[in-house]
């Protein structure tokens, strides 16, 4: 497979995560202190690099069939969760993720947390912890996408290029505007990423289970638009009041989180 679709998929997926991490970092840096914020970011990036350093070589040693089965299952589950959330948001069944209001919430919490407390080499542990957690949690998903896509395509380098480009672009834009990137069409991007993750997960998972796809890799060129069309169909159906009118009473999921980092 050409490296371009791999780079573009990883770029879009990682850009979504980078936008969310940027919101948290800006809130910590602008309301608390930049030095401790950068320290928190740096430690999180080192931790993420260690995860890639340990898991990267290990994952590429796995037999391709087993790798595709496990990674395909994980990607399909991940992608379906992204798609589900994006469709629920697009149809008004769940509040849109708003970077501006997320930023204001983080700023209020940072201001209420009390004054900076110097201990050791960090002058403000609140800013450090906020930046560390934000970058680590959002970064873990980036690492997951880079490793799974890169290992499956035997091209971790291309996946890293896509992820690095996304982080650089979002960082440069964030530094330029010095505000959360609330104009980014986040839900549309999540919808697109959900389609790509679900499509690749379906393709690789089935291959790992022993299936031979008609047309081999070209099957993806059919799978992606079909999953996109079906997802758009579900969106239109829900906009017209589909499930509520057609389904009758059904239990809602017991566990519906407000916002999982990275989703």
């Amino acid at each position, binding site marked *: 497979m050409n490296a371009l679709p791999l780079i573009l998929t990883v770029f879009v997926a990682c850009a979504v995560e980078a936008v969310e991490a940027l919101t948290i970092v800006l809130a910590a840096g602008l309301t608390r202190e930049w030095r401790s914020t950068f320290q928190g970011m740096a430690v999180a990036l080192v931790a993420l690099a260690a995860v890639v350093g340990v898991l990267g070589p290990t994952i590429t040693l796995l037999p391709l069939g087993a790798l595709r089965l496990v990674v395909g299952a994980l990607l399909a589950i991940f992608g379906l969760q992204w798609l589900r959330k994006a469709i629920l948001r697009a149809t008004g069944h769940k509040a849109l993720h708003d970077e501006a209001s997320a930023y204001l919430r983080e700023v209020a919490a940072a201001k209420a947390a009390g004054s900076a407390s110097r201990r050791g080499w960090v002058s403000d542990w609140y800013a450090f912890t906020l930046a560390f957690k934000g970058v680590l949690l959002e970064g873990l998903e980036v690492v997951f996408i880079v490793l799974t896509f890169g290992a499956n395509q035997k091209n971790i380098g291309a996946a890293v290029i896509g992820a690095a480009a996304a982080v650089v672009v979002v960082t440069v834009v964030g530094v330029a505007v010095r505000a959360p990137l609330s104009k980014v069409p986040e839900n549309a991007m999540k919808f697109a990423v959900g389609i790509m993750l679900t499509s690749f997960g379906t393709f690789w998972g089935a291959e790992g289970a022993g*299936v031979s796809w008609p047309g081999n890799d070209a099957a993806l060129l059919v799978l992606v638009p079909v999953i996109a069309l079906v997802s758009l169909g579900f969106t239109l159906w829900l906009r017209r009041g589909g499930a509520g009118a057609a389904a009758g009473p059904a239990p809602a999921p017991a566990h519906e989180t407000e916002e*999982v980092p990275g989703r």
Partner: protein
Amino acid sequence: MSGVTRWLKSFGAFWYDFVIGDDWQVAAIVVAALGVTALLVHQAGVNAWWLMPLAVFGALAWSLRRATANRPPS
């Protein structure tokens, strides 16, 4: 509850949220579909490439139905 138990619980909860997310039934359908696909391919000799796409559409429809039933859009 000891500190270690609490840490293990929150560690497990983080990974559950990270991998499984809001609706565990989606994960269960995907895993079951892959298992049935493997059985069909290796035991019955059927090249069941069509099963995973059907399972994915079914899982999404089922999950959306459960999430929106009796909940009008805001």
